[in-house]
């Protein structure tokens, strides 16, 4: 199925993005030492000669890897994994649909995504190298990067834009497909308020993708114009660069415009990453605590509100651009507001654990780790929402720490939980417990080893784009001119701890990969089609679900989380089980 294709491709891209980060961490921790062979073997000698200086990572290479790490992780890894893979696999099953509404569109969307990803990554092999202006691709920097390349279509920076347009097209097709499926293909009895929270989250994610991506597509096209036909959408008048002198451009454009269009996508994008993880965890917690999801309705309303608010918070990424007090205040207010629905959701998850009979199955471990880890990520975001605090923290490692706490131990843990949870549906076997312990605990520890020191460094003022980890401040002694040097001396050795953490974590992903593939054939067999004794519709299908998913059209009789009902013999009452006394209140309302 296309969901699995999405999943495997996305995991490959994630691994690649992780690798780029490992190289960057070397440069940060040991800027003067050649890249060791265990990381460098990937490159050919020719590539090393072009991009490494005596084996050391150069600033340019670091920038390139940094930009591509961000891009790959966000656009090629997490979005396709969350929305493309989980959404594609689970959503139709949970609403009792035979497939997505437009299967061919779904296929097209996958191939366009793959094409976009390959275009972006292929540029590593160009003479210009891949994109190198950060994943945010701000103009005018991004407008000039690779400007020396005569044929602009073969410049990494241009390829990035083309790849981006492909990815946006792909996710646009995907989101149209998802929303249509959810609106029109719900099975009999599946009213809106009987949809699992997962489906709600996917619906909102779909809308975010649908409405937030096009402005970035517009920005991408405009930047492409800037690069290829030398327009000045984002180029101000009188632009002067060290290499070019006064730029031969008309000027008159606005770099700020790019930031507006980018962050109009950029902020909803964060929720596009996050909501699928919420979705997974909110399915796993009730199934493993044997309790209904606490506050289902408030979670639904929260996620809708979250979706709406995420469109009007974007300029909190732009406090430092010289916006005036009125606009800053507006965005500060909305930003603080948006934390309310997220906290409602996370609190509801937490309360769902209260008094449950918790089974620490493999997915449940990840789900339980998700809550506090995401909590740290969310709470560290609050200082950034405030104008005044952001003046100090802007562009420091604090931002990196915050964002990665949300994405890595937060969202990725949610996805690992999801993989473990639905693996028995996909293969009919469980994933191994021992290997999972070997994966889970080191990952949890390493994540904190990597990201917690970032918060500390960031508050000390470490800038996020130092390719040598602040080493430049140590080249001469701290004195009255180089006062910052003292602060750097105090915190620079954390770089080594973080890098060690990152490499160790890479090592402990190997158990997961082994687990993922060996369990397919050798894992413990799942008992029946509903091994977790869960209540939602995907567990009513045969394992694995064949063409058309269901053997006969299911009917939904009740809400999604009917666990431990006092009037029931077993501790779960699936949505599709016919009520014992037909004709009472449990009749499926709503028609075809």
């Amino acid at each position, binding site marked *: 199925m296309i969901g699995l294709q999405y999943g495997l491709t996305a995991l490959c891209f994630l691994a690649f993005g992780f690798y780029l980060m490992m190289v960057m961490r070397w440069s940060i921790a040991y800027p003067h030492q050649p890249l060791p062979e265990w990381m460098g073997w990937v490159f050919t000698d020719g590539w*090393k000669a072009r991009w490494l200086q*005596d084996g050391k990572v150069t600033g340019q290479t670091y920038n390139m890897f940094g930009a591509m790490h961000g891009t790959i992780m966000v656009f090629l890894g997490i979005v396709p994994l969350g929305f493309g893979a989980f959404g594609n696999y689970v959503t139709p099953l949970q609403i009792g649909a035979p497939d997505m509404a437009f299967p061919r569109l779904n296929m097209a969307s996958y191939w366009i995504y793959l094409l976009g990803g390959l275009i972006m990554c292929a540029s590593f092999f160009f003479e210009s190298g891949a994109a190198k202006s950060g994943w945010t691709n701000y103009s005018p920097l991004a407008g000039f990067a690779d400007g020396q390349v005569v044929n602009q279509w073969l410049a990494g920076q241009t390829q990035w834009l083309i790849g981006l347009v492909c990815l946006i097209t792909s996710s646009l097709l995907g989101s149209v497909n998802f929303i249509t499926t959810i609106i029109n293909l719900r099975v009999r009895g599946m009213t809106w308020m009987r949809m699992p929270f997962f489906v709600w989250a996917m619906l909102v994610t779909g809308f975010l993708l649908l409405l937030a991506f096009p402005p970035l597509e517009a920005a991408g096209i405009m930047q492409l114009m800037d690069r290829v036909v030398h327009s000045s959408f984002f180029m101000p008048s009188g632009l002067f660069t060290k290499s070019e002198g006064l730029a031969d451009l008309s000027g008159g*454009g606005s770099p700020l415009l790019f930031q507006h269009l980018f962050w109009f996508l950029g902020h909803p994008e964060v929720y596009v990453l996050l909501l699928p993880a919420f979705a997974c965890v909110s399915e796993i917690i009730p199934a493993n605590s044997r309790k209904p999801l606490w506050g289902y309705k408030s979670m639904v309303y929260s996620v809708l509100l979250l979706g709406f608010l995420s469109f009007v918070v974007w300029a909190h990424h732009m406090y430092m651009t010289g916006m005036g007090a009125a606009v800053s205040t507006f965005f500060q207010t909305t930003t603080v507001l948006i934390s309310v629905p997220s906290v409602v959701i996370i609190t509801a998850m937490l309360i769902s654990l209260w008094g449950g009979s918790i089974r620490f199955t493999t997915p449940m471990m990840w789900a339980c780790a998700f809550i506090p880890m995401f909590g740290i990520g969310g709470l560290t975001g609050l200082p950034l929402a405030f104008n005044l605090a952001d003046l100090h923290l802007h562009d420091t490692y604090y931002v990196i720490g915050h964002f990665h706490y949300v994405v890595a131990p937060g969202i990725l843990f949610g996805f690992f939980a999801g993989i473990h949870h639905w693996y028995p549906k996909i293969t009919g076997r469980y994933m191994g417990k021992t290997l999972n312990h070997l994966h889970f605990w080191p990952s949890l520890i390493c994540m904190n080893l990597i990201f917690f020191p970032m918060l500390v460094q960031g508050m000390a003022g470490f800038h996020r784009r130092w390719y040598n980890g602040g080493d430049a401040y140590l080249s001469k002694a701290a004195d009255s001119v180089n006062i910052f040097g003292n602060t750097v001396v105090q915190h620079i050795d954390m770089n080594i701890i973080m890098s060690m953490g990152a490499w160790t974590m890479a090592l402990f992903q190997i158990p997961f990969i082994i687990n993922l593939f060996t369990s397919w054939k050798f894992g413990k067999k799942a008992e029946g089609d509903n091994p977790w004794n869960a209540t939602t519709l995907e567990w009513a299908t045969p394992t694995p679900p064949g063409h058309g998913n269901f053997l006969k059209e299911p009917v939904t009789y009740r809400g999604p989380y009917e666990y431990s009902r006092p009037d029931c013999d077993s501790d779960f009452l699936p949505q599709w089980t016919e009520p014992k006394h037909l004709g009472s209140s449990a009749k499926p309302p709503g028609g075809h």
Partner: protein
Amino acid sequence: MEIPYVVTPRKDTGLFNSKIAIWLFLASEVMLFGGFFSAYVFLRLGADYPWPERTLPVLPGLINTFVLIGSSVTVVFAWASLKLREWRKFQLFMGITVGCAMIFMVLKGVEYNVKLHHQALKLKDYSVVEGHLGVESEDGKPVLDHKGSTIEENLIFVEASKLTFDTVRFYKPWVEELSAQAEHHHSKVALAADVTAITKVGQPAEVIAKAGEPLSVELLNRIQAAHLAARSHNAANRTEALRAEWVTAKAANPGKKGWQIASGVNIDMAALAPTLLGEISTVSFSVDPPAKLDFRPRDIKAAEGQSRLRDDTVVDGKLLASPMVFHHIDAIDFQHLVMKAKEKGIDPEVAIENSWPMKNSAFVRDAWAWHQGEIKKLSAELLEAHGVGKNGKPRYVPTHKELYRIGWKDLAKMAEDHGRAKLSGVDAAKEEFFGPNYEARGDETFPGFSVPREQVGFASKFTPAWNTYYAIYFTITGLHGLHVIGGALVLAYYLFFGKKMYLSNPEWLANRVEIGGLFWHFVDLVWIFVFPILYLM
């Protein structure tokens, strides 16, 4: 299970699948065009140059609007005919719709083409002239480029005596172009000296190419291969050496941090030298006799004696006078100059008097004097029609554009005032479409004009590069054009390949046409906004 609601609507939502999908898609299209329109508003409000308002010829835009609205009507007729099961009528109306789309694109193409051949030039003093770049002549004959066509480009000429290529970065099409140009000028481009390098460790240097070999991509490729091999080898060796140094340094300084000892860890290049190969990072060719080569300004960083191309090719030689020669100018525009003058607190009239075109061209002086007279007339008319306001000044005054821009219609009117014949009929209509008609109006109306290179500020055809207005104009209309093409293709598909589906399931086809039609109406709807915003405001 089959996928339901493909043709029939679902009862509780009342919609079939593709109806939902198309409206979702249109919502995202609203966001896409909304992004561009936001950009338009942002750029216009924030523009630091006089925004060219009402600058496009209205007629082509107007006709295109009619065409598109007409096609919107016919597509809805086509759908209605299908609902009534009248296949012939459907074919007719759909045919007209697709035809309209084609007319629209042709008109668009004409409009673009005019702009892509129309030159604008902003001088260093911010006065602007527009017109048609022309033909430089020597001894009364037009100068031809190496392909045998007249030069109608903004070019920089260098009398090149030596070309030095970067062996990694050289751009193949340029290499071919440069040798063709030199050949056109009967010059030979040949390797200046033997290219030698050590290609095997411990061996003496080897000759890779002999002096006198003519310039070719193949030759450069050969040198490049040797260079890259050496570069890889050397880099690997240096890396190994540095690694060894670090092992030694760490052993010698136990307990010290990397950054504390880094400054002392260096490669001993002298010891390493015998193991290295010869890198050939550049290679020089002599041009004999020195030839006049032309370059587009964007590709060259011109400097007296030594210029550099974008692919790091170094061109040695004298920089020749490279004036921008307008065959015809059709507009003189002081709007930007006045804006800059006002910012600096200079009297606009003084700034204009001191501008380069006024000082150096009798025609510009004449035109300006005539224009002043016209402005006086206009001011008097406005005063007469609207009177004075409370502050004792005229209520309505000429606009900034009217005051400081002499457009091609003004120049034509000036010529007519001076006794030149008026254009009429087809010629006049053609001008509304294609812009000034140089042939019919002649050199007196639109004379030649030459600007020396040192006065050239920024030059461009009327492409997206000229200013942000043209950038957004081309982007929005171009994207809209792509939508027209896409929509027309889908509708044409229903027209030509819909018969089979019509016979088997006409309702399904009607649904599809409705969906295609919805998209088509949306394209029309976007144009309804594009037309006033880009053409009339």
